[in-house]
């Protein structure tokens, strides 16, 4: 099986309203990285089938066209962005490389993000968001593996 090519300089940003995230794109670009936007769960999963990203950042409220992509009778039905985090984790992104965010503070999401081992952030706190991203970017898993070798 051919390994998925890794884009070490690119972050996948899954959000259906990218016009509200100009600030985040600008911040990421200022750190020397690129951003690829996916507007649906379908687009995000398709992107992850082609590339592995430095980090995956997903809004929990994002449209999904192919309903088979979300696990039935699970929190993914209400928060389709969780399906993106799930796939990101199963396709080799480390826990700290996957960030999900939402307007609402929900214990169900908190539990699910703990199960998936990803970071859960709330909208309205961009500084916390940026700090988390800086922390993620300070660690390049491929370089760490190479050092250990």
């Amino acid at each position, binding site marked *: 099986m051919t390994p998925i090519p890794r884009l070490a300089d690119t972050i996948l940003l899954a959000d*259906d*309203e990218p*016009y*509200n*995230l*100009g*600030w*985040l794109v*600008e*911040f990421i670009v*200022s750190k020397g990285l690129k951003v690829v936007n996916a*507007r*649906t769960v379908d687009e995000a999963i398709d992107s992850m089938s082609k590339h592995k990203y430095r980090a995956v950042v997903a*809004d929990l*409220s*994002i*449209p999904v*066209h192919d309903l088979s992509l979300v696990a039935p009778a699970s929190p993914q039905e209400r928060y*389709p962005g969780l399906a993106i985090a799930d796939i990101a984790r199963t396709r080799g992104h480390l826990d700290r490389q996957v960030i999900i965010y939402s*307007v*609402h503070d929900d214990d169900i999401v908190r539990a699910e993000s703990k199960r998936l081992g990803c970071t859960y952030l709330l*909208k*309205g*706190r*961009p*500084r916390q*968001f*940026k700090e988390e991203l800086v922390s993620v970017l300070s660690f390049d898993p491929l370089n760490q593996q190479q050092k250990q070798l």
Partner: protein
Amino acid sequence: MNSPHHPDALDLRLLANFIHQVVNPLNGVIGTVDNLLDGTVALDKRHQRLAAIRAQLEWSVMLVRNLAYFTESSLGVESRKQSPAAKICVIPQLVIEAALFFQESGLSEGINIHLEDRETQYAVRGSPDLLRQVFMNLLDNAVKYSDADSTVTIRPWIQKSTNHFILEVRNYGPGFRFDEAELLFKVGYRSEQAIKRVASGTGLGLFICRRILMEIDASIEAEYSRQNREVIMRLRFPNWEVM
């Protein structure tokens, strides 16, 4: 409508959607301000970012006004109802003011807003603020749900058979099903295609457009041509004049 003391599931769902809608642009404002403060934004781009902040705040205010209007009309408050002695609303002026607001977000997707016949000063009597809100809601939808690299056209004309002033907002996009044409104007309703494009929305915009227009004996209807992917929002004003 339910008493405010007994909010039902619709009220709460609207409120949750509203919170989501208003936090998004405010989150953008805070993020951009933080970028300005910590030096992420280059000096030559500061003016542009400040303009973006202003646009996001204005959008937030537009959403809050929708909620305020919805709340007032639900409670039967008529303080803002448009009386016969209402002001003269010059339509091209209000359309241009609303269009300017969405110009930047439209251009980021290659969407142009074009007003046909800027010269004829069609006017109706009512509240300019409320009519501007109608055009902002319509253009918000048109830009948000248009195909990339397309044009939103606003076309004013007089229907000879009725002598009504007609204003059409036309855009190209995924549209809606035939049986949704009336449902679009119900509180909280969002078309299947709209939900596929943007997960969250208040479903208040078109409801409010119809309510505001009804107050001046005007009306609005929706039409979609699947063949050429054209959405038409048609406003009809029986009472009008030219300034």
